[in-house]
């Protein structure tokens, strides 16, 4: 690679110099997860309520974004959207690349989040909705007061995976010239020819943020699932395998224990 020998001191130096670019990365992650969550909810609803045509459309949306590489999606949006809008006399040539990056990552994570929401909502058992109707709640009250809070806590682990996946995916934004931490690392590497040191500090930076996010979501999950101690891992029992079904597993475990009494 470079003509220099490896020097650990540079790893620390580059790590420090990468930090200012972190705000670009976090901006992309934060805004695309924020927008993606709203998009995901909108896309999941037609499937949850089985709305005839919209349901097909949202399935199409999800399969497109899950079925094509994010790099291709980035290029498609960056080069394609301005071309299409040109037909409608909208000029996007001066729009910063960052806009297209956030757009792509929002739509991309929206597709995954739609799947997360769909799975989590269907994991809340139907009986509780019936109970809500039986006490006189309407559909909206039953959804917002009974289903949604539980769906949220069930979805936290998978949602966390989407966020962490999104963070790592943003490393491709440099292909459009974005100076996020990867883009910054590229240019520092080219300038100094110390690629190994640069990439070690870049990897460390990604790892630290991922790890912090992972811990954050674990804490959040434990908090939100305090009503299901077995599922939230608050007991000393071995953790049930992470899945949407874990609370089912937990409740059946409870029933089994009850049966032994």
């Amino acid at each position, binding site marked *: 690679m470079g003509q220099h020998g490896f020097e650990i001191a540079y790893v620390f130096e580059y790590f420090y110099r990468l930090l200012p670019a972190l705000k670009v990365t976090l901006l992309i992650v934060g805004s695309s997860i924020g927008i993606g969550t709203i998009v995901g909810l909108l896309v999941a609803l037609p499937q949850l309520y089985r709305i005839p045509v919209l349901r097909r459309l949202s399935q199409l949306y999800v399969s497109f974004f899950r079925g094509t590489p994010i790099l291709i999606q980035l290029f498609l949006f960056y080069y394609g959207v301005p071309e299409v809008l040109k037909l409608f006399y909208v000029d996007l040539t001066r729009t910063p690349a960052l806009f297209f990056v956030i757009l792509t990552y929002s739509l991309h994570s929206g597709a995954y989040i739609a799947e997360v929401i769909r799975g989590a909502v269907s994991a809340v*058992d139907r*009986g*509780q909705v*019936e*109970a*809500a*109707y*039986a*006490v*006189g*709640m*309407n559909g909206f*009250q039953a959804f917002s*007061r*009974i289903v949604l*809070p*539980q769906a949220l*806590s069930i979805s936290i682990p998978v949602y966390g995976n989407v966020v962490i996946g999104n963070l790592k995916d943003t490393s491709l934004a440099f292909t459009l010239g974005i100076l996020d931490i990867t883009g910054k690392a590229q240019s520092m590497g080219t300038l100094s020819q110390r690629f190994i040191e640069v990439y070690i500090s870049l990897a460390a930076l990604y790892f630290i943020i991922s790890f912090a996010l992972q811990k954050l979501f674990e804490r959040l999950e434990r908090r939100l699932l*305090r*009503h*299901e*101690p*077995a599922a939230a891992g608050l007991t000393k029992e071995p953790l049930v395998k992470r899945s949407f079904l874990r*609370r089912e597993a*937990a*409740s059946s475990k*409870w*029933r089994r224990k*009850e*049966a032994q*009494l």
Partner: protein
Amino acid sequence: MIQLSQIKKSYGRQQVLHGIDLTVGKGDVVAILGPSGSGKTTLLRCINYLERPSEGDITIDGFTVHCKRLTKSDIHQLRLKSAMVFQQYNLFRHKTALENVMEGLVVVHKLPKEQARLRAVEMLEKVGLGDKLDAYPSQLSGGQQQRVGIARALALSPKVILLDEPTSSLDPELVGEVLSVIRKIAKEGITMIIVTHEMSFAQDVASHVVFMDNGTIVEQGKPREIFQSPKEERTKQFLKRFAPESAYSI
């Protein structure tokens, strides 16, 4: 008080209720018996519209719903007049026992929180769970969960409480505590319709027994009439399985 007339229900081509007529008086405790698949749970769920009857009229406390033509607000009105206790308890799992009972009072009946709380505590004490107010369903036994379910239903002061096999998913040892709570509220003169497999309980608590088979009411009357001198062959055949234990030689 409650009147069902010509309730019919079909799933696709299969008809599960063939025009049920049933009248329940105020303070009655009606037990609906019958083999599985006879439509008794479906009938009960039609009364608060968790199941949509295909035809028929439902009247509770002077309010009539015609199943052929009705609005969302009709369904809502109807549901406000009843409360339900489910076989699988169906407690809100993210809420404590107290919150489960308060939920309907606050959200549906718009009671101020403090008042709802007092009422909820009173109801939980009535079912013997005054010491479990802050427990989540996952921390309660099946019997305790079902008693919370009963308190949740009672708190709404419904005209009728519908109980759908309230003890069927309980361990034998826990059945007693739930039945004794139901017996206690029956004595208070609350109208109840219970779908049950507990024959001796039905005989003991019910004021009226309905025997269903194949989506129709085969026979109904006072518990003594049904259990001791059933008229219909099908009823006799069904009750034979629940003959007193002395009939078996072990």
